[in-house]
């Protein structure tokens, strides 16, 4: 079984050198810690920047320079700023190579549910998730494979409200990595569990 940090490292290792990448808020931001300068990966933040650097040092925050999670970040040499319509045109026009998102559920065909649990008292909030889901050339999801109640989060069909249809390409979890897409889920690697057991717990053919 992999830790969240190990999942983030696995995602980072699969990002091709020189990619333009958007890391969603929450756990995906940990991927940045595993990207080397030599990789040449350039980070995009939806609020209008390419060439985003690491989080600002405490005491050195510049609140005009934040990421999508509204945390103070830094600027790397070669950065560029642009406005929101240009930033989302960049996403929606398919110019990002990879985005990494968290999820509540992913379907075997790559549908994504990550913005709303559907609970009646929940205040819905979508942010840029739907734009990222359909925009990037590849959408990687990182999450635990099972919810706290033991239910699988890789499913035949999402039961939570969707973020995007047939958009996820790879799924990185604590127990396994999968390819998902038109041909269904394909198990790539497992961690501390064998394939047959995993298929049974998921209730899926893999």
């Amino acid at each position, binding site marked *: 079984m992999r830790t969240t940090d190990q999942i983030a490292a696995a995602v980072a290792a699969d990002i091709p050198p020189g990619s333009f990448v958007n890391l969603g808020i929450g756990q995906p931001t940990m991927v940045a810690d595993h990207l080397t300068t030599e990789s040449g990966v350039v980070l995009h933040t939806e609020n209008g920047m390419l060439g985003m650097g690491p989080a600002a040092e405490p005491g050195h925050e510049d609140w005009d320079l934040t990421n999508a999670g509204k945390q103070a970040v830094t600027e790397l040499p070669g950065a560029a700023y642009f406005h929101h319509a240009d930033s989302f045109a960049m996403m929606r026009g398919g110019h990002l190579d990879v985005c990494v998102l968290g999820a509540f559920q992913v379907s075997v065909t790559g549908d994504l549910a990550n913005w709303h649990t559907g609970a009646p008292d929940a*205040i819905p909030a*979508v942010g840029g998730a739907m734009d990222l889901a359909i925009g990037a050339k590849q959408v990687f999801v990182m999450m635990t494979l099972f919810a706290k109640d033991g239910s699988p989060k890789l499913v035949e069909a999402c039961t939570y409200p969707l973020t995007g*249809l047939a958009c996820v390409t790879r799924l990185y979890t604590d127990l396994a990595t999968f390819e998902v897409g038109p041909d269904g889920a394909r198990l790539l690697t497992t961690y501390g569990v064998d394939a047959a057991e995993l298929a049974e717990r998921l209730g899926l053919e893999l």
Partner: protein
Amino acid sequence: MRTAFLDTPDEAVADVADGSTVLIGGFGLAGMPIALIDALIRQGAGDLTIVNNNAGNGDTGLAALLAKGRVRKVICSFPRQHDSWVFDDLYRRGAIELELVPQGNLAERMRAAGAGIGAFFCPTGVGTPLAEGKETREIDGRTYVLEYPLRGDVALIGALRADRAGNLVYRKTARNFGPVMATAAATVVAEVRELVDVGGIDPEAVVTPSIFVDRVVLA
């Protein structure tokens, strides 16, 4: 018409009418026109529709406007934040309307309003609850949702610097929605930190040309 330079934020928002749609710049606090929002609170206009990425933070700025009961409806992408208690409470009590819009649609719909586009087929949200009931069309093998322009009566934005011609530049990611909102409202009011003479902004680096800027106030 050329940009007017006003002495106080209160003069700059004096004519905002009840029932207006007000576009408010900023992504969280970055780029948020705090002085203009405070002036709008003092000014007293009500029954407002507010367009912002969020729905207020803490008890100041947009949250304070909401707390005063001046806002009928919020159009935003991400109301729920750790410090959005003012909105959360109004929403749970049914005391405020919410139109939730994917962030890219929010930006693109305002861009369309500013660019004279009547509607556009958009890839975001297809198959999700936020596209329910909307017209869809398959074009070139991909499904799109038809989205409409989002216009403001007034835009309140924050910028770094204006020149005396009315051109604006922004600072880092505080640029965000400002330049888009500046194209999408009948009256555009910019709060700036610095005011320089004509010639003080490089024509190659202007982000919002003066044609979009009706009023500037140093704050």
